[in-house]
């Protein structure tokens, strides 16, 4: 028996590292990670790496093309908009806002959605019915429409847009958490925990919930992407970030009437949104491959 105890180095590494390794070995996951790293770094380092102030107008530099087009200069690498603001700087600062949108709206949805889903799945019965029917009602609305309604009620602005996006994302988390809790509830360790004298809330959050994390993490990553997209959509409609905030969606809205004269003003923030959302979606797929035991080889 003592020999057995010594021969157990095979599994000595924490399971977290196994999954991290699996994620990095997965090409989609790695691509997602790299894109997100770029976005996160530009967001964190915005004050130091952006060449210009993102809000300052410059009357002499209006609608300068990017450096790779005729007439472009290295002073404004990705050109300027109609007020002479440097697009690269605005994109870099915009990454901050997009990440903030992702963190806050996914955070709201994660916390409220997980709580509701866990309570519904654990207690079952009428509580479950009540919560999940409300979730169904939220899901019955086209989600951007519902977000518009909520923002219209709260008043336009980036903060309210984040709250609105958070609210419309709650059902996704609630459903996933409920399904996982229903599955875990049947396991013996839940009974063992109850037989040890633990309270319901303790069983839900400290025994069951950690076992449901894998699908929630994946959902959070995918939710990040769609939150950024939704926020850009709301800002494009003028309900999110207000000028002169360098938000990607708002920048597209600003550049809309210039599309024939200066395509880059609108296109470049579009590409930024594309890559930001793509990055989180790829990461989400990679995480699913790494975390889902059914997909393990």
């Amino acid at each position: 028996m003592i020999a057995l105890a010594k021969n157990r180095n095979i599994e000595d590494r924490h399971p977290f590292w196994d999954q991290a390794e699996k994620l990095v070995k997965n090409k989609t996951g790695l691509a997602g990670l790299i894109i997100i790293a770029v976005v996160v770094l530009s967001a964190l380092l915005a004050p130091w790496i952006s060449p210009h102030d993102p809000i300052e107008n410059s009357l002499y530099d209006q609608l300068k093309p990017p450096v790779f087009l005729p007439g472009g200069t290295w002073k404004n690498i990705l050109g300027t908009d109609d007020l002479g603001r440097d697009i690269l700087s605005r994109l870099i600062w915009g990454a901050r806002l997009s990440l903030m949108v992702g963190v806050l709206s996914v955070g709201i949805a994660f916390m409220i959605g997980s709580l509701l889903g866990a309570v519904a799945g654990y207690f079952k019965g009428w509580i479950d019915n009540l919560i999940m029917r409300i979730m169904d009602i939220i899901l019955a609305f086209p989600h951007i429409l519902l977000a518009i309604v909520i923002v219209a009620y709260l008043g336009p602005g980036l903060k309210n847009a984040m709250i609105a996006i958070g609210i419309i994302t709650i059902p996704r988390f609630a459903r996933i958490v409920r399904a996982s809790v229903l599955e875990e509830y049947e396991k013996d360790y839940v009974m063992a925990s109850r037989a040890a004298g633990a309270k319901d809330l303790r069983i839900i959050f400290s025994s069951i919930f950690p076992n449901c994390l894998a699908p929630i993490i994946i959902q959070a990553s995918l939710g990040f992407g769609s939150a950024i997209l939704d926020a850009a959509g709301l800002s494009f409609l003028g309900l999110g970030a207000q000028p002169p905030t360098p938000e990607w969606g708002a920048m597209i809205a600003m550049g809309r009437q210039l599309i024939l004269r200066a395509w880059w003003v609108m296109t470049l923030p579009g590409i930024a949104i594309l890559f930001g959302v793509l990055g989180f979606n790829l990461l989400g797929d990679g995480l699913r491959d790494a975390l889902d035991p059914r997909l393990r080889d």
Partner: protein
Amino acid sequence: MALLEINNLTVEFHIRGGVVTAVDNVSLAIEPGQTLGLVGESGCGKSVTASSIMGLVPSPPGVIAGGEIFFEGEDLLKYSEKQMRKIRGNMISMIFQEPMTSLNPVFPVGDQVSEVIRLHEKLDRSQARQKVIDVFKQVGIPAPETRIDDYPHQMSGGMRQRVMIAMALACSPRLMIADEPTTALDVTIQAQILELMNRLKRETGASILFITHDLGVIAEMAQQVAVMYAGKVMEAADVETIYENPKHPYTVGLLSSIPVLGRGKEKHRLETIPGVVPSLFNLPQGCRFSERCPDVFDKCRKENPEMIDLSPGHKVRCFKYA
């Protein structure tokens, strides 16, 4: 006074399609420091009886329709949920059948045992950790100082069952309920675990309610035996009486269907009890065993037999002895 005394416990499940009486007028008693073996086929109500003692019958659909469960003189069925939480894990603890699934896969085993300790005793983290190491030593886990940080998947089935026993033992309970604790283990590990439980019982003076369908295990563990069939106790006696002088045809049938080493040479066929356990939805009229009983007569099919005292401590539910 008995440590645990169950009187006429009846547990019903109200489900679609009707009411199922999973436990019907069951009476049991466990003396301090003794092991009661509860024997029966799958679905005869053994585990539901255990859940009732813990106050963990899933409700709905389960309803405790009647009876009393006296633990140290107090009726547990009258306790509030809050009072029951103080009993669970502390005064009465439970060991489960599947050591593979009864530990939480995302936490180190030591944390799970120390959680139980900290639920019931005011100890800080390091004191609780020390206590876990002590309990691990007591249940024979080698190198407890390092094993305490292992995750369940890093342990073998036997080791995990030792952790489960450590968890049950952590707060020095008066009664341990072991629900088929060795069914999922292979025979050599099974012997080790049984030996361990017997040793711990001697050391701690705790009583054990040992639930199993394996009469061979009962012989090693129990002093008293109760045989259950379709929700009713059919025969109860001390372990020698059950093995040497079984009275109920069901007990006789169970005992003769145990293979005996060497008997095969004499061209004996292993005996079985014909038929299957009746569905609780559709119980036969009269004695529940009547359809499978070799000694059945008319009265058995019409009336339900009462428990009869054959001799002090030996009770049987059969018209043969009326």
